[in-house]
């Protein structure tokens, strides 16, 4: 195993397939893309199976120094990167399948874009060189522009433009910060930078610069307004990959760079993250409640979920960070599934207006069942993936601040309200509209997409240990790194007088204590 450069292979397979797709016919392009993504998925499983939990922090490392200028080609994964790569290679074949019939225009180019996207996503998570990371990180925008801009909806230009403007601003700041970091530390090697101690005052500026870029990617309130437009305009598979993986790049940046590299700043500025996250949970949930466009609703719910991620990460403790990572994986699966659920009925009726549907439970029972499952996973019903992540991160947040935990937990009420309201309007009710009546239930291809997503959502909910175990050591490392600068929680538990503990039993004590309670 050690001899095989598996990460390079996983970068190369989709890249080569992308070139092939450009020159193949429509039908061949689809087959090539599916085959390549499946090969990568298998490679991912091989990598996961060979990942040594509790072994070296960085595994499957490859390194070629100074390929051109200061750039090093250095790859490697730890448990967190491994899990996010698994998420990417798992979703990719499903995205290709989701586009199988929906995309008829310039299929070769479309498939090539998706394959390029896969290479870029794996690159982001596997890069061990700061500049290599930056190139992949920014390059991810290009295929997304094309996917929205060419195969998107009516207002795609506006959406792509907004996406671009937002991201541009943040990127420049992050690039400058990276250059400063390289100048200060004298290396572009990420593992080295992870243990390098930047002066605290520099950290603050670096932190803010990274934050500006990553907050847009996440997206955090108030730089989230590109997301609903991008989702609405993107084709189904574009939304799946955007919500599923691209949004995770921002939070990956938090846990990979901002937290371990700038621990002092992280401790000082955690309230910035908490504040914005609290606003986002309540604000975007309320906005989601009044949406009439299905994709916009789910897009706004994504912002709320990502706010739980940011708050969980900045709880700076084991539960908060592990929970946030599980929310990232869970949201990747569940939001992709929800966007596909929208795509299924969009393909049949060509509208995303919620009011155009109703009564689908009658003629599409299998669809109704899957949609219910993912709705519940999004709400965070225990037994599904959503719960484990939400619960752990909120438990972590509570340790840092009960107030923040309270505000973030209101998301479970609002989340239930907007998702069930959506579900009711689409699936329940009387089936009266003729065109809705004519919609057939899921076909085998759609089954093949939804069934694996459902299986993973349940697996992660019932036995999350499979996903937590590889990441545990990495999270512990980050927590230890942050420990000196982490502020104490707000609980300030103070022991009572020992005498009080002895009382409490016996009838006389009862009577008097109750009197105090009621009056």
């Amino acid at each position, binding site marked *: 195993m050690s001899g095989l450069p598996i990460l390079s292979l996983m970068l190369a397979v989709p890249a080569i397939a992308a070139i092939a797709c450009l020159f193949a016919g429509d039908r061949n392009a689809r087959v090539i893309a599916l085959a390549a993504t499946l090969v990568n998925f298998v490679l991912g499983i091989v990598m996961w199976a060979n990942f040594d939990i509790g072994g070296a922090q960085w595994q499957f490392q490859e390194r070629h120094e100074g390929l051109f200028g200061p750039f090093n080609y250095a790859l490697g994964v730890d448990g967190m990167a491994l899990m996010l790569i698994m998420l990417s290679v798992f979703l990719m074949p499903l995205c290709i399948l989701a586009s199988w019939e929906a995309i008829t225009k310039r299929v070769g180019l479309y498939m090539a874009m998706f394959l390029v996207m896969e290479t870029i996503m794996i690159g982001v998570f596997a890069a061990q060189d700061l500049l290599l990371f930056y190139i992949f990180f920014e390059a991810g925008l290009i295929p997304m522009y094309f996917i929205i801009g060419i195969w998107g909806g009516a207002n795609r230009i506006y959406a792509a433009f*907004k996406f671009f403007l937002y991201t541009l601003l943040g990127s420049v700041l992050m690039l400058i910060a990276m250059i400063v970091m390289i100048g200060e530390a004298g290396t572009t090697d990420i593992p080295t930078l992870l243990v390098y101690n930047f002066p605290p005052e520099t950290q603050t500026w670096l932190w803010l610069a990274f934050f500006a870029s990553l907050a847009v990617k996440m997206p955090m309130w108030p730089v989230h307004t590109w997301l609903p437009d991008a989702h609405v305009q993107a084709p189904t598979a574009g939304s799946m990959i955007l919500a599923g993986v691209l949004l995770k790049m921002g939070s990956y940046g938090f846990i990979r760079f901002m937290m371990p590299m700038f621990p002092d700043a992280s401790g000082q500025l955690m309230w910035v993250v908490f504040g914005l996250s609290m606003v986002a949970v309540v604000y975007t949930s309320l*906005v989601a409640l009044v949406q009439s466009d299905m994709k916009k609703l789910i897009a706004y719910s994504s912002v709320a979920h990502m706010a739980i991620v940011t708050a969980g990460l900045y709880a700076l403790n084991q539960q908060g960070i592990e929970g946030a990572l599980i929310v990232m994986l869970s949201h990747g699966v569940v939001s992709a599934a929800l966007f596909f659920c929208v795509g299924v009925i969009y393909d049949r009726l060509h509208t995303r207006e919620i009011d155009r549907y109703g009564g689908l439970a009658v003629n599409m029972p299998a669809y109704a069942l899957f949609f219910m499952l993912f709705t519940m996973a999004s709400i965070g019903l225990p037994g599904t993936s959503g719960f484990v992540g939400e619960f752990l991160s909120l438990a972590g947040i509570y340790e840092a601040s009960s107030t923040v935990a309270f505000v973030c937990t209101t998301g479970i*009420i609002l989340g*239930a309200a907007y998702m069930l309201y959506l579900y*009711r309007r689409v699936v329940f009710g009387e089936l009266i509209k003729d065109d809705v009546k004519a919609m057939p239930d899921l076909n085998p291809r759609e089954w093949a997409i939804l069934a694996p997503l459902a299986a993973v959502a349940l697996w992660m909910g019932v036995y999350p240990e499979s996903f937590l175990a590889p990441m545990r050591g990495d999270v512990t490392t980050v927590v230890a790194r942050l420990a000196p600068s982490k502020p104490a929680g707000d609980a300030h538990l103070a022991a009572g007088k020992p005498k009080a503990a002895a009382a409490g039993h016996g009838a006389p004590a009862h009577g008097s204590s*109750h009197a105090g309670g009621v009056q």
Partner: protein
Amino acid sequence: MIQAIVFLPLLAALVAGLGQRVIGNVPSKIITTGALFVSCALSWPIFLSFVTGTGQPEVVTVLHWVSSGALQFNWELRVDTLTAVMLVVITTVSALVHLYSWGYMEEDPDQPRFFAYLSLFTFAMLMLVTANNLVQMFFGWEGVGLASYLLIGFWYKKPSANAAAIKAFVVNRVGDLGFMLGIFGTFLVFGTVSIPEILAAAPGMAGSTITFMGGRFDTMTILCLLLFIGAMGKSAQLGLHTWLPDAMEGPTPVSALIHAATMVTAGVFMVCRLSPMFETAPVAQGVVMFVGAATCFFAATVATTQWDIKRVIAYSTCSQLGYMFFAAGAGAYGAAMFHLFTHAFFKALLFLGAGSVIHAMHHEQDMRYYGNLRKSIPITFWAMMLGTLAITGVGIAGVAGFAGFYSKDGILEAAFASGGGGVVAFWVGIFVAFLTSFYSWRLVFLTFYGKARWEQSEHIQHAVHGEHEDPSAEHSGDDHAHAHHPDAHSDGTAGYHPHESPLSMLIPLVVLSIGAVFAGIAFHHQFIYPEEGAAFWKGSLAFDEHLMHAAHEVPLWVKWTPFTVMAIGLFLAWNSYIRNTSLPARFVAQFKLLHQFLYNKWYFDELYNILFVKPAFAIGRFFWKRVDEGTIDRFGPDGAAALVQGGTRLAVRLQSGYVYGYAFVMLLGLVGLASWAMVNFL
């Protein structure tokens, strides 16, 4: 064995729910009902082993669930006395309700789905009561919430059913917010979510203080109150009760199983399970007692004015749950569990009896259109009669009585004996016992006695004229127009002949009647007698022998008062609804405002609509239109675009579709800039 009890219903639900198309209707029903009867048959020996004192508590680990730092919990099944009580309640009522549904849901085209939901519910409820850690309890808690949501909205074509289902889920989530924060706080304080470990450590935390949301509180008080908010949601206590009456939109067997016998008692179970925690927090206990007494009173007053037979029973349930809570607040957890146990039998009986009436009356639920049914459906009548005797607590102190007599009097005596606020709760409880008697007998008299008033019912008219009616046409009995067709039949029957329900519905009624009659006399020693109780509960809840002793030695008038007020209530109901039937109308005319206030359920729904629902939508719209689009976008990306347009006319190119090329060029530029910067900096 416990694994079989818990997981058979899940297995059955999956087979029936997912495989219905393959295996068909009848096999689906056989599998689910069969699984429940097996679970039930396995549960009773466990319970009886605890009754006889041979049963030993055990914990079976099924699967590892989560470990994150110190926060670790597994899928575990705990069996002790408290669980055993719940096991028999859940599996017995559930098995009977499955059987009953064969008859009740016979005309429904969607039966496998219904049975699958019922079994799924049972599984979740069993997971709740076998939980050995707070998170698994929360799993069951949410699982029963899901099943409740699905079953309330079972007739998903009805807008009112959908609205009720969402309301139930969302209101429960408000309670869950408290429950979750309670779990987080408990973990923070104790470093574990394992229930036995928390309970063992709780006394050591008495008197300690903690900061919660900026304020400084007694640790155990704040934790208990947060957890209790969860219990309030699930058990429909005052403030979070609004979903329960609406939940009657679901089919009647669902109301019997979920919204009377089992799920709504989960809050009581939780407080009893965590009773050693509550014992360390007297203030929290006081709140539990206060909320329980307030709910008890509130719901009983509303129940006296409702016309819909199911809503009367729903408010009655709400009120009885209040009794259980104030018993728990008084420290009489054994009495609370005893009432939970007996209530499960007689309330399920009343609901299933009501279902049988509704079945006979062709889906009519409004008691104004009932009357004189005792001769047409005698078995249902006698079942309802026994249920009413049980709920009103008929019995003679020291001799014998129906189930509710033992449990309700046990609660009232314990409340009295606990002194202080308990005495106030006792008097509230006495007044509510009077109201309970009044509204329960009112229901019986309106339904089974007097003259037939069927001809005014639309449903009966439909039935008589042979029009087809949707089986999902059970509807709430609010004042919608009932057509008044004068008919040739002067006896008020409109020529309709109600039929007794099929055997599948009558057997459950008979079995539950046995429970309603004998559950009290058979088990009251174990549940509430001081010495036997301590031996029975074996520490599975905080059983206070001193308090139970004191409860037995209350003055004689305390023991006789409940019976007296019951008799007054019975007389008043008889006087108003049999002897002098114009009296209620005159009373309503006299006290119009009071009646309106009660009839409209104290206007809670209207209040919440103004306070929460409407503002949520309005604020959401404001954030979306005014902030997102009107401010962020306007001064952010759109503003930037306008700026560009004004300055360089570049926007023309942007808008004509060159954005990709532009973006690409910019990116290349960025890379170039990076390279340049590096060469110069490094």
